[in-house]
């Protein structure tokens, strides 16, 4: 049996370790992360380097390299309180307050380049989200993201920033700008896949849906059957088929995705049913489209990304069908349940 002193020493050591960990940077991993060197879904230590592909964390003599696609967020030791406030406001949909807090955090974190970079990215990505809902903010968002990319060309946020920029550009139909941006994204090892998908979307939107379909087929062939990447590619392909007015093929494809995915996989099912709704609406089948969107509302409302989109589409369809009380009800729910969603602020129609 160990002596009382030995036990006290062990307790003291444990206390010291806890204190050391409390003062460390915390790399929070994405839910369901496959990264094995994490404890409790996070890696703790000192962030020593960040690149588009990975983040290096040192803990004593140990160095851990975390791929960026496994990272949800990083809480840096000694980061300004405004950083956390910015995140909290952003999560609550209070965009203006969040932007102000991130700006404040960037100023207060002078001398801490990773914190400044994270704050600037937080601000720019919020503005990008706004620009998707409000066309008047596109210019501001593009300039802020461009400035960010120029200031931090090799940081961990580059892939996400270029992706956000591409989305804004595609939404604003700036196809030339998007193409140039995606070419840069494709050069990054961690961004090549995203670039390919977005490129296909670009082709579909810019009037060459067949090229998009071909590209997506090529990408899908390389992705494992049933993998999330394959599902995503198939749903983007469905969009491209809609752009090519090949509605039946698009519908068949999306229904296959729905049938192949587990019924309780709300992330895939909600995206797929929304894609199905888009396809059927484009094919002038409003009632069928309504049924598809209603699946998201009634069965997969857990998906907070897709649910507001479905609510908006349902509201629009009910309005088109002249069912005004139902349309009003959906409009009210959208505003009530997602007051800060771009879909809630988006102009009707």
């Amino acid at each position, binding site marked *: 049996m160990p002596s009382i002193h030995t036990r006290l020493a062990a307790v003291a050591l444990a206390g010291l370790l806890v204190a050391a960990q409390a003062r460390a940077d915390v790399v929070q991993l994405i839910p369901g992360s496959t990264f094995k060197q994490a404890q409790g879904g996070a890696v703790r230590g000192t962030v020593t380097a960040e690149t588009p592909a990975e983040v290096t964390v040192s803990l004593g003599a140990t160095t851990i390299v975390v791929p960026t696609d496994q990272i949800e967020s990083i809480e840096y030791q000694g980061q300004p309180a405004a950083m956390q406030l910015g995140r909290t406001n952003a999560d609550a949909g209070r965009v203006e307050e969040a932007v102000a807090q991130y700006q404040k955090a960037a100023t207060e974190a002078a001398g801490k380049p990773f914190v400044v970079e994270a704050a600037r990215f937080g601000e720019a990505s919020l503005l990008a989200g706004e620009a998707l809902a409000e066309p008047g903010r596109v210019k501001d968002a593009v300039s802020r993201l461009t400035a960010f990319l120029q200031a931090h060309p090799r940081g961990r946020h580059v892939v996400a920033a270029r992706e956000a920029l591409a989305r804004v550009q595609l939404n604003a139909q700036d196809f030339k700008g998007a193409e140039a941006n995606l070419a840069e994204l494709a050069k990054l090892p961690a961004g090549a896949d995203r670039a390919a998908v977005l490129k296909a979307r670009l082709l579909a939107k810019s009037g060459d849906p067949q090229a998009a379909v071909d590209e997506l087929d090529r990408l899908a062939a390389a992705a494992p059957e049933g993998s999330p990447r394959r599902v995503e590619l198939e749903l983007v392909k469905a969009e491209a088929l809609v752009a090519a007015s090949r509605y039946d093929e698009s519908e*068949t494809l999306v229904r296959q995705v*729905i049938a192949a995915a587990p*019924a*309780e996989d709300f992330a895939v099912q909600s995206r797929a049913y929304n894609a199905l709704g888009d396809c059927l609406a484009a094919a002038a089948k409003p009632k069928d489209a309504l*049924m598809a969107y*209603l699946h998201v*509302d*009634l*069965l997969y409302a857990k998906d907070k990304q897709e649910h507001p989109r479905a609510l908006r589409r349902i509201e629009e369809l009910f309005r088109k069908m*002249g069912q005004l009380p139902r349309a009003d009800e959906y409009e009210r729910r959208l505003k009530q349940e997602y007051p800060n969603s771009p879909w809630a602020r988006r102009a009707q129609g």
Partner: protein
Amino acid sequence: MPRRRAAGLALSLLLLTAPGLATAGEDPRTAAAFLLGLRERGYFDLASEYLERLRGAPGLGEPLKGMLDYHEGRMLVDEASRTVDLARRRELLDRAAARLEAFAKERPDDAEAMEALVEVARGQAERGHLARLVAEDAQDPEKKQDKLDEARAHFREAAEAYERCAERLDAAYQALAGFKERGDPRIEQRDRLRNSMLDARLKRGIALYEEAQTYPSDAAERGPIIDKALELFDAMEKGYRGTTAGMLAQMYRGKCFEEQGKIGEAIGDYRALMGQPDERLRDLKRHVSYFYIIALAKREQFALAADEAVRWFQIHDRREERDSVEGLGVAYELARAIDAQVTPETPKAEKDQASKRIVEALAPVVRAPSRFKNDALDLLRKYRPSTAFQPSEIARLSFDETTGQAEEALAAREWDRAVALLRAALGKAGPRQADRVNRLRYDLGFACYMNKQYPEAEVVAGHLARRHSTWELAPPAAALALQAIFEQYQASRAADRAGDLERYLDLAKFTAATWPEREEADDARIVMGQIHQGRGEYDLALADFAAVRERSPRRLEAQTRLGGAHWARSLALAREGEARRAEAEAEAAEAVAILRRTLDDRKAAGAATGDVGFLGNAADLGAALTESGKADEAIAVLKPIVEAQAAGTGPAHGRLMEAYLLAQINTGQVEPAIASMRALEQSGEGSNRARLYFKLGRLLEAELDRLAKADQPQKLAEMKKSFRSFLMALAESEDGQSFDSLHWAAGGLLSLGAGAEAEGVLRELIEDSEGNAEFMGQPGAVERLLRAKVKLAEALRIQKKFDPAASVIDELTTDPRYSRYIDPLIAKGELLDAREDWRAACAHWQDVAQKLSRARPRPEAYFDAWYRAAVAYAKQGQTARARQTLTAVTRLNPTLGGPAMKKKYDDLLATLK
């Protein structure tokens, strides 16, 4: 159980038992959960459409495929519980019961079968609610009481049905009770049985509580029922404390306490439940807080009750919550609570404010059928008396005030006031009210219709239907416009009926084409079919009836009409002669096949034996079979249906009996036919009664003749007695009666020597006909009346009432309208014969013969007149003159108009030798 939780649970359960995927279309793994979601949202139209898709999905497998009736039945009960249209509610409940009972019968061993029976019981309870609402609305005290009795019976039946279900569920649950290893699939089944059993028990208590509500508040019967319900809720609350079922039981226990005047205990229960923090109990708390407000008002804590009511609306701000029974109840309680605080001493400004709040609160209450509606209307009248009907008053109202008053006028059925207010509101509507204009127009169309301003209703509703066809109420607007045209068509013969029909057809075609999947389209198709059939446009009629959707609630009716249209077409073809005989027979066969198939479908759908559509279908099939020469088959089809009839009245029963009687007549079943005729007389109105009587009369006459020839005097006497009673029944029949049927009945009575009875029938017939301007205006009325009077003279004559008979005949012979007819003269001759005034008779018959001698070819009456003159000679002992008369006529007319007359002459000549 809260809805979201229920939906979540249902989804998990369904996903656990996910069957294989369908090859295409809807995902069967989530279909049931999706349906549940649609139902809970109140999107019954979408749920119904979704079910339709599932039924049509080629790859849909079991168990979902076999469950569709069950899902549809549950959906219909849900829809019935929410619809404000009481007639539709009844229809929905009927359909739900048929679906659920059929499901439970077909799959008695399924776990869902017991749940289906619980739903059937729920349907009974909903019927109770329906009857209670109708009672609330009824103005006639007798009808009100009838409906309350009906409601009570339904609630009682529901309580009994729930009890039976609970016992069965409990037995099934007990069989699975005891320890089970984790992961054992029976755990899920056991839990489900337990939940269903608790649900059934709880609903039994609620049905008892509702039964008590059908008695007046001071009735002695109320107490024992409430005691029983309280006992049940108390046991459940104690046995299942903390569960949803236990909490629901606690809520209703509070309600029973309230009924017993124990307000403190009730409030204790309510507060305990309102204090539950779980957000998933939102639905439960919605009810509880409403009951709490009622209890506060009962304790005369009106200020607190009003505050709680306001809070209720702040928390329950969803549309379906506001529109629910509880929402309406809270609004009513709010108005009452404010009203109770207004006293003569209340300052005017506060009074005005209170008045405004009361009117605002009551506006939605008076618009929907609920048990608060009448009281709410009374309260509303107190604060807004109908003084604003003056145009000058209406002009002073704002748009919102005008629409508010219009809604109240609609609710109060003050149609003329509603029309004025709605017109004014439309005039006041500005761009900001654009989205409300169509609703106002719709209400205006409805108010005009109810105010019997049919052309206005047609114009307003027709405009909405055609110009705003994507608007949600456009299809009902089309239905309203169609009904308005129909009323115009019915209103007056002088009006442009052909034009009405054309407008009807035009709008009906538009309706069917614009909303092909809606029930309004099916209604339009059916009426179009009827119009086309009436016009002899059989191809169009067949297409209309056949186009009614497979899943339409009127599908079976449409199929019956389709069979009827084929039958009508076969008759039309048969009238065209031998060349089209084959076509006619093919059409008749098709009619019989469709009618038979539809009758089978009705049976399979669980149609009640007294169902009007079922009886009409059976009657059509029976008639078609009989007239196709298959009367035996008709008897085989109809006999079990006739024997199963409990009620012996009503037009549908009448039609059935007519068809049955027709089949019996055609198979020569005399006595059963007479029995059916008597049943028919009791069944009320009918359309083909006279035709049937003629047929039955002929059958009886033929039977009399047969018996006479067969020398069966006893049977002959019995048959004569039957014939006589039949004729009297016919004459006394009030329905389906016509001049011809009565005239024929009188003739029959005369043939039986029943002069007195015939006299009675004829006098009434003559009196009624002469006083009937419509009859007298018809072509041939004079001649028909003449024949009746001649028969009257005969009836008097055979009773030896010679003077009255002579008066009748004198009246006829002196009336210039009858101067060109021979019938009065023949009647006069017969009277002279009867009086044995042979001299006068001889002269009269010769005179008649002379009058007829100019006719070519000579009528039978001419030869008969000479014959009668010869008889008169003979009766005077002038046999030579008699013989001479007969031989002279025979010489000039060797055939004497026919063998019968020749035989008469020969027979008489033989006696004169």
